[in-house]
């Protein structure tokens, strides 16, 4: 996520829509992609993005800058995305529909690269599908968004050692899944 200048935040907290648009431009990519990776569905990711930014707009005037603004956005996004994922899971009897079609921003011009990219997306979707929501959140924030352990701990309001243990368990199950896939292919 891009850094956001302090005076932009101040202006936006006073209700300035143009300043708020700058915040949106800096953070929307993060919010949308994290929501999509956690929920696995574009329509829900769009709704969550809209919800997150409306919450930010309304609560920005109460934000006292004691915590990092980025951490605050991470936390709102993760809460909303995980809750939506769990709600979908409950409503659909434990089955969540994933969008298999992906349209990444970096579209390679060469067909070979495009095929590789599509294969890579399929792999990412199937790997994330195999994880529980808490593990998925840690993997998305660490491996896709590149947050540090400390930032993940603050975003999810958990201890840094819990981040370690969730990542370890997630990766152990991903390695086991990889072995299973290879075994089945043979």
């Amino acid at each position: 996520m891009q850094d956001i200048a302090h005076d932009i935040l101040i202006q936006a907290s006073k209700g300035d829509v143009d300043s708020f648009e700058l915040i949106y431009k800096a953070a929307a990519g993060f919010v949308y992609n994290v929501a999509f990776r956690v929920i696995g569905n574009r329509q829900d990711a769009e709704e969550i993005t809209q919800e997150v930014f409306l919450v930010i707009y309304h609560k920005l005037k109460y934000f006292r800058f004691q915590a990092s603004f980025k951490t605050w956005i991470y936390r709102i996004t993760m809460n909303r995305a995980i809750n939506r994922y769990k709600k979908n899971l409950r409503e659909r009897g434990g089955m969540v529909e994933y969008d298999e079609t992906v349209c990444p921003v970096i579209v390679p011009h060469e067909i070979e690269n495009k095929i590789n990219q599509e294969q890579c997306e399929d792999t990412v979707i199937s790997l994330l599908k195999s994880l529980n929501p808490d593990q998925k959140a840690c993997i998305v924030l660490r491996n896709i968004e590149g947050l540090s352990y400390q930032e993940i701990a603050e975003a999810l309001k958990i201890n840094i050692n819990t981040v370690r243990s969730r990542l370890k368990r997630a990766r152990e199950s991903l390695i086991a899944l990889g072995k299973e896939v290879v075994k089945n292919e043979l």
Partner: protein
Amino acid sequence: MNCEKIQELILTDYLDGQMQGKQKECVEQHLLRCFRCREFLEHARKTVVEPFTRAGRDIPPEFIWARIRESIIAEKERPAYAVPGFLEKLISRFRVLSPYPVIGTVIMAIFIIGIAIQFKTSTTARVKSEVQEQIEYLVSVTEMTPGNSMNEKTGFGTVIEEYFL
């Protein structure tokens, strides 16, 4: 450190570049002499790190910002008497109703409540007077009854009565 502990560290801090100093040195020295752990590291990199680093990123559709902006502007254009917070939500539930039927309903409600109170007051007074009347009647009846006195001689003066008593 044994291989199990090293592999645990590989799966977390080492793979994520969060390890520094002596611990990192210790893991790297172990990797130099342990083929199994080196293989584990390579496998972990390929399986759990590389697929995610090559994952695509989407640009959020433009209509999302359009909707957010629309929602913010609509909120700003709300009338000045709007009350913030939960009261606003409460009011917004009634905002769909036009004012005239609401005023009519309120007047009707006040009228019905007034009648109910009036009816209740008059009924209570009537019941009280009826009860009073009944008490007075009972008292008068009791006083007027000839066999009411306990000292008076009772009975019909028959032979059987005399025999038993």
